[in-house]
């Protein structure tokens, strides 16, 4: 009896995921865009769909956010079936797209009040929420100016502020930082982290590995309509053996001698550098140093490389990046 009661909170935490997709398929004409992808996002976490342009990220967001219909697959968002009850899904979600979904002809404040009206807030409540969000997103000074005069970063902030008017528990962010300068990007990251600390679930698409690494609890690499790999950033990094110790030489003669002596290494004759496979552990590093000492080789620079998401990304998506004509990402 007590045991079941104790386990209840744990069970609650791992209860129904906020977003699930099973066998999601979509094609445009005879072009297959999503080839049966499976996704499960626990409530209160950041999930990142990572992939190159044209991988189908935006299409996945469009389908999960009820903008377009899927060709197949079972999709549930916020506990509702996307195909059966899209209106209930819409009530649970907020969407901020790749291209700003703001009304450029009216002011930032009017955009906010428009959202308040569409969420059926009372006039006073609408004004309060709008003012609060404009303040939070640092848009007070620009509130009375037409949104089309905003910079890219401001538009994106207004866009997200509009999404938050309805206090959605699940938010889709489609490439929220594409085209932003580094400062705006870091601001956006801060905002996204804040959202999740309030218990919001975030479905994020990005083509930036750093962004997924920084933000996401769980990452799925989408390539050519299929999920090529998924896991935490660390799990993905472990997938590929990219770790090595790099020795750099400035004198070509020393480089050649070293390359001849250390036979089991990867040579880069142009950069005058040698790569020795290594997991980066202290033990292996000492072994390499001992080896170098015993052969009398002295490199000008020694660096240790652990695999990063870049390595994972290129390893997993190499096939499509070599295509001469990358299909354009579908845009709103």
């Amino acid at each position, binding site marked *: 009896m007590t045991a079941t009661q104790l386990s209840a909170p744990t069970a609650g935490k791992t209860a129904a995921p906020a977003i699930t997709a099973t066998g999601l398929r979509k094609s445009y004409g005879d072009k297959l865009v999503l080839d049966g992808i499976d996704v499960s996002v626990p409530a209160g976490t950041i999930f990142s769909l990572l992939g190159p342009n044209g991988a189908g990220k935006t299409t996945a967001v469009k389908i999960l956010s009820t903008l377009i219909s899927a060709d197949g697959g079972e999709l549930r968002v916020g506990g509702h079936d996307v195909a059966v009850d899209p209106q209930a899904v819409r009530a649970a979600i907020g969407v901020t*797209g790749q*291209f700003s979904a*703001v009304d450029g*002809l009216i002011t930032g404040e009017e955009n906010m009040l428009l959202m308040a*009206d569409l969420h059926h807030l009372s006039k006073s409540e609408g004004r309060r929420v709008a003012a609060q969000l404009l303040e939070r997103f640092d848009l007070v000074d620009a509130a009375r100016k037409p949104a089309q005069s905003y910079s890219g970063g401001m538009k994106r902030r207004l866009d997200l502020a509009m999404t938050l008017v309805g206090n959605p528990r699940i938010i889709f962010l489609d490439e929220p930082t594409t085209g932003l300068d580094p400062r705006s990007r870091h601001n956006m990251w801060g905002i996204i982290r804040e959202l999740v600390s309030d218990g919001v679930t975030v479905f994020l698409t990005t083509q930036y590995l750093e962004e997924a690494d920084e933000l996401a609890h769980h990452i799925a690499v989408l390539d050519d309509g299929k999920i090529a790999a998924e896991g935490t950033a660390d799990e993905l990094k472990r997938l590929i053996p990219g770790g090595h110790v790099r020795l750099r030489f400035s004198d070509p003669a020393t480089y050649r001698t070293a390359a001849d002596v250390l036979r089991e290494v990867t040579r880069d004759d142009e950069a005058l550098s040698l790569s020795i496979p290594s997991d980066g552990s202290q033990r292996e590093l000492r072994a390499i140093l001992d080896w170098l000492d015993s052969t009398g080789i002295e490199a000008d620079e020694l660096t240790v490389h652990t695999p990063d998401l870049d390595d994972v990304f290129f390893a997993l998506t190499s096939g499509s990046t070599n295509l001469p004509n990358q299909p354009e990402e579908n845009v709103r």
Partner: protein
Amino acid sequence: MSALSLTVRDSNTMLRRNLLHARRYPSLTLNLLLTPVILLLLFVYIFGDVMSAGIGGGSADRSDYIAYIVPGILMMTIASTVVGTAVSVSNDMTEGVIARFRTMAIHRGSVIIGHVLGSVLQSVMSVVLVGAVGVAIGFRSTDATALEWIAAFGLLALFALALTWIAVGMGLISPNAEAASNNATPLILLPLISSAFIPAETMPGWFQPIAEYQPFTPAIETLRGLLLGTEIGNNGWIALAWCLALSVLGYRWSTAVFNRDPK
């Protein structure tokens, strides 16, 4: 919230959005008034002598022709305004905010209903402005009762509603503003082959049925009858039938196009 009150509330919100656009950027609406006003002045002051003689008004005074042409020009004003509707709907559909509306739990049709209501209001305002020009150059209604004035306004509003629904459909299927403008151009050409400028019975015999039964002629003849006391005959019913048919057709077409998956 019931389905009806949701529809009313969201449509009202969208209407206010469209009126805000129109108020902030009035140049589009005002430009559209130029065509009917210029045609009015052209036909009265440049072609006026021949036209007056042509309708057999008796006196060489142009007042007969002014009386004849103004109801037609008022209907043409509506056609001109809804060309603007097609353009603004098409422009609006390229805005990201429309995608946002589609992912919100609002009444789905409210986006287009807002456009339609806004456009009808603009049409009525445009008709009043062009009507004022007509009055300024000497148009006077003869013996129209209050009821006939109300019926005249009702007819103008209903005709505006019908043409607006068609224009909204045209705007929705147009990929850009230029295409929307081209697609809607026939709406402003129709009055030229109606009884707006010359009586349908003075046109070539084979063409008369087309001129007589296209939407504009019955509507114009009915408006003339209401304002000037000329014979309405069955034109009233034909005009009403056209308005209802075009409204229903435009409504079904527009909602079907809007409910399709966006590209």
